[in-house]
């Protein structure tokens, strides 16, 4: 499932679209504002047999289901692994604190993600790329897998099954990411009853199972509680630039004229100290953080450029080189032909107002920085998306 699916737009349509998206403010085909998301409906807990599940449906008809299953797995022992000591009792705990409590660590192997897009093989480059992006965001800071640590000998192995259940009408990355985010929020792991490095034993009461991402104890859905700094799974947002405009959550058609498209993964860390590491370059970030009652400690986890389908679109032909408009009329000798070819080349390389031409070259660093910053803005889109997802009932 490549981003470069077939776009059934003519060069003229592309040119028009590009022009209208380049306006200030841009005019999007569906009338959204640049930062506005497509409306969506979300619910969790749709698969009772899983540890956590979610389903999101975009208004354009695309729909995804994510199920999270957890299994207990024995951690592979390393040669420097301390031997099992059953007598480790409460009295030893003080000594252990320094050496062994810090041992909590994760491994990327503990998460297995499969992405399924209808109509595509699972080893399709696009599918693999999607899966890589989603897991990259999850594993980037190494914090996520630490949550799967049970003790020095065991860990949870998490299986994330991400299914797009509608045809891929638009590039599904944001949809899949949001659904995964929601499913992880809803994921609960059985409560551990055993202590230390014993073989894990769990509480049989599902109601007692804690969330993988512990929720604040305040009332659910209340804005205050939601804004309390808690860790959240990452979300990957799709942002694109057309001319000087930054457009969020592009539709398939919009993506077809993107100059640059980026997949930006942001996470939220529970500790405010991590704000320093956010790429939000504004020195006021910290101040804002303390002042603003609501706001997330956003941190950038990863950025990927997406090859926009616009690159593969056929260019429009300027009238100057269009034979139908007499550009070629009367040209008979080879001399003229040669000249024509040169003309055609210039036509291809030089922009002609109102004629579609596929963007060339990589994203410019300045544009990238602007895109990323826009995502991480306090009270920006990422903030809003996270807030909005907070409102979903997790039961």
């Amino acid at each position: 499932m490549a981003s470069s699916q077939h776009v059934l737009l003519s060069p003229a349509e592309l040119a028009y679209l590009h022009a209208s998206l380049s306006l200030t403010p841009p005019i999007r085909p569906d009338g959204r504002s640049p930062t506005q998301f497509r409306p969506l409906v979300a619910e969790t807990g749709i698969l009772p047999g899983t540890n956590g599940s979610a389903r999101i449906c975009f208004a354009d008809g695309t729909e995804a289901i994510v199920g999270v299953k957890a299994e207990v797995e024995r951690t592979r022992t390393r040669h420097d692994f301390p031997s099992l000591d059953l007598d480790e009792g409460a009295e030893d705990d003080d000594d252990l604190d320094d050496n062994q409590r810090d041992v909590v660590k994760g491994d990327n192997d503990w998460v297995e993600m499969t992405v399924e897009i209808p109509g595509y093989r699972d080893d399709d480059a696009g599918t693999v790329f999607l899966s890589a992006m989603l897991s990259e965001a999850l594993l980037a800071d190494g914090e996520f897998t630490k949550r799967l640590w049970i003790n020095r000998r065991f860990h949870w192995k998490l299986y994330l099954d991400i299914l797009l259940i509608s045809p891929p009408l638009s590039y599904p990355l944001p949809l899949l990411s949001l659904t995964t985010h929601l499913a992880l929020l809803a994921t609960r792991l059985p409560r551990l009853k055993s202590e230390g490095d014993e073989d894990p034993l769990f509480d049989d009461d599902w109601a007692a199972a804690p969330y993988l991402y512990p929720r604040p104890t305040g009332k659910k859905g209340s804005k205050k509680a939601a804004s309390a700094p808690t860790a959240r799974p990452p979300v990957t947002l799709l942002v694109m630039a057309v001319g000087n405009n930054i457009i969020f959550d592009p539709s398939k058609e919009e993506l077809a004229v993107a100059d640059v498209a980026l997949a930006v993964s942001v996470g939220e860390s529970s500790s405010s100290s991590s704000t320093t590491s956010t790429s939000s370059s504004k020195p006021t970030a910290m101040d804002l953080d303390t002042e603003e009652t609501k706001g997330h400690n956003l941190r950038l986890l990863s950025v990927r450029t997406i090859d926009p389908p616009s690159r593969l679109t056929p260019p429009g032909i300027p009238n100057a080189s269009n034979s139908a408009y007499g550009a070629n009329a009367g040209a008979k000798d080879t001399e003229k032909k040669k000249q024509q070819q040169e003309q055609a080349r210039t036509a291809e390389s030089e922009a002609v107002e109102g004629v579609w031409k596929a963007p060339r070259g990589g994203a410019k660093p300045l544009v990238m920085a602007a895109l990323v910053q826009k995502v991480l803005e306090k009270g920006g889109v990422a903030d809003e998306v996270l807030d909005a997802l907070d409102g979903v009932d997790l039961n």
Partner: protein
Amino acid sequence: MRQWQPSPKIPSPNQQTSPACRTTRPPSTPTATMASLKRSFESDPLAQNISSKVYVRSTKSGKVQKIVREVYLRQDIPCSSRLCNACLKIAPKDAANRPIPFVLSEKPAGTSVFTQGHYIVPDTNAFLSAMDLFEQSSAFYDVIVLQVVLEEVRARSLPLYNRLVSLTKSEDKRFYVFFNEFRLETYVTREEGESVNDRNDRAVRKAVKWYNEHLSKTSKKAPAVVMLSNDRDNLRKAKEDDIPAYSLADYVRQLKDGEQLLDMIPELEERDALIEKKPGQFLYPEYYTLSKMNTGVKNGLLHQGIFNVSPYNYLEGSTRVPAFPKALLILGRENINRAVDGDLVVVEVLPKDQWKEPSTQVIEEEAVTKNENPTEEGSDLISEKERKALQEEAKRTLAKTTEGHALPTAKVVGIIKRNWRQYVGHIDQSSVSSSAAQGRKQDSVFVIPMDKKIPKIRLRTRQVAELLGKRILVTIDAWDRTSRHPTGHFVRSLGELETKAAETEALLLEYDVQYRPFPKTVLDCLPKEGHDWKVPASMDDPGWRDRQDLRDLLICSIDPIGCQDIDDALHARALPNGNFEVGVHIADVSHFVKPNNAMDTEASIRGTTVYLVDKRIDMLPMLLGTDLCSLKPYVERYAFSVIWEMNSNADIVGSRFTKSVIKSREAFSYEQAQLRIDDASQQDELTNSIRTLLELSKKLKQKRLDAGALSLSSPEIKIHMESETSDPIDVKTKEHLATMSLVEEFMLLANTSVAAKIYEAFPQTAILRRHAAPPKTNFDELANQLRVKKGLDLSVESSRALADSLDQCVDPKEPFFNTLIRIMATRCMMSAEYFCSGTQSYPEFRHYGLASEIYTHFTSPIRRYADLVAHRQLAAAIEYEAVHPAVRSRGRLEAVCKNINVRHRNAQLAGRASIAYYVGQALRGKATEEDGFVMKIFSNGFVVLVPKFGIESLIRLRDLAEPEPAATYDAETYTLTTSGSREVKVELFQKVKVRVTDQKDETTGKRGVKMELVSTY
């Protein structure tokens, strides 16, 4: 129940502040395209009937699963009260469309509080702690057993569950199982943070409440529904909810004559009681948590095994674990840590410097802890006397520097499964305070179990005076860390000590022999004709299908005198070619006992017929065992025949198996048959055929011995009874007749032939019997003793070598010496066991004692269940009948084998114990001097076997003289030399003269023999 809520749209958080960032469209947009995938309970009219259970299941392999179960609730589960008309309409119907009759009486008994009558709803705890109470016939009728309670009982204790189920089946007790978990009104969902136990308790309370409301609609004076519980918390909550509830004790007090039942009730359970006690009061170390034990066992740091107590030393236990070739020793109270013989325990091996030798001293609990007071707990775990005994032990170990002999020791760190049962015992006279013997106030006494391996049990009772001097049945309730002895409660009295009825019942209870009369369901499986059943005259009858007519053969049976259940009969005749046709005919029990009916189930549970001296507890009802199946003479009977063609050298030329009809010509006793053979004037055909059989059997025996079969020995005696009163009057050792080995040889041959046949037909599921070769270490001690004392060598490489070296073990001066060694060698062997062929590899099938490659039991289907299974398998193997799933399922067969192995062993032990009891009775009031042999020697006593009575008994140093003589024990030469008040030198294998008298053993209350050393030879 989870209520579905409409999926929220993503709200717009701050439309005012940044209008450019609206994330939501106006509500007019078509966001409702997605219907929720979750079940919508709002739209479903039957939604209230559906609930779900969500829980976490941990599997054995360590997997952890979230389980979601849907529960479909119904309203057509009747209350089953005969008062209720509403439920009658919805009552389930049987095949004939008649409603199944309701269980609970319309006029239930009342109590002093509930004069209008009442139904009882016990909670799990009530059943677990006082099942005996519910089995009383004086009270406890009209009981509602809730499904949740039944399931909990099953999870906690299978034996109790089985008893409860049989109660629910008994018609006169009126126990009704109410499926509260499926009835809409009584279903409860687990609340957040609620433990399963609390949830189940709540379910019980809800059911009681519903029952009360439901019945109150039926009439004004409807019976009350009362919850019984022994859990304070549950009672308190019931009170809060205004639900009638009583503790067992409070309830029993309301009954007429309730006082007597009070003893059967354990103390009210207090969950927090222990925490209040100071840690200093704990006498025993705490058990590890279950997860810690599991981890330890999996990693090989801890070991799991069955805990066994030494019969000679109650402070010495052992457990055999796979990781060690020899059993781990567990020494001392603290290390034993509340384990009781038979428990499945987890042990931790102690450091090597604490390894010890097994004790050479006899320590009996009774002697050491004689003056303990049951009402006060000593603060020390180990009493002064015990400490002394242990110290002597330690000194001895230290004195010897033979470190190589030290065995690994271990301590119990946890108990996986208690194997507590009901124990027979009697009240220790010395533990009874003088006031208690008269008053009716509750008093603590010690009960001394008959089984010496079980510790004393502290019992609280009001009827000390009545129970003194009686055989009583008690159960263990608990063993707290704060209590030196386990606490238990009284179940029932079996009768006066030393009365035949009480002692026999005690014996049967102790060995878990099912002795209750056969229930009606079993008797219903018998042929309707009863004793008039005959082999059908018409050969067209289906009974004759594939059956060979062998009625013209000269068949006879040879059995012990008075044998009624004749399993086997024999014939032999010469064939024209000079060979012989030999037939073994076995009662065709499988014709009468069809797989999986009630009779079959009962037989499979009983496993074997148990023979006591004066009593036989049948596996099958009398009608079959002694009449219809029994191959009685002069009548036609169905049989299963094994027929060989043999040459005169007793080599088998051919063999076949067939169902048949036979007519036995005569039922001989061994003696009669012997006389007839010996009488040369008897030249009739029948006698001659017996002579042929005898000749052939001698050749068979020789072949068997050549192959290395062992001729082992156990002291066998016979008790002569006075015919009128059946009081024992004399004890004699059994004689051995040639006719006995005649029958034995052909039975062995039949068993071997059948084993090969069923194994060929069912390589995975044949029921076979094996006798594993004993580990060489088992003989170490005996070999060493023989070498040191007699200069004899015992080679144990193979059964052949052992048989030969046993033959060499003779003392020309003492003919009995060889038998003594054989008896001792037998005790070193493994016990033979039934198994299912798929569970072992072929070389493991070997029967060590019989030196046979493959063996099974086929010849006694009337008294052994294994034979019955073998019959069914053989019938299927010869295509007489279709293979029944019951004889094909490996899992089931394994379960059957496991059970009959235990039953077989118990039956043997019960038989021996019965003989021991009767020997004691026969010797009552007589004192004789007999020859005996020293067969085991300790540092403070020795064991003497008296061949004439087949009994062995311990003679302690303190029995030799008063005061106790000093003694030195030389473990190297197995010699005990006493000095001081009496000077004797006792050696192993020595022949001694002992005075045998009867004596009531104060510790076990058994009358047994007492031996006194008269002189040494």
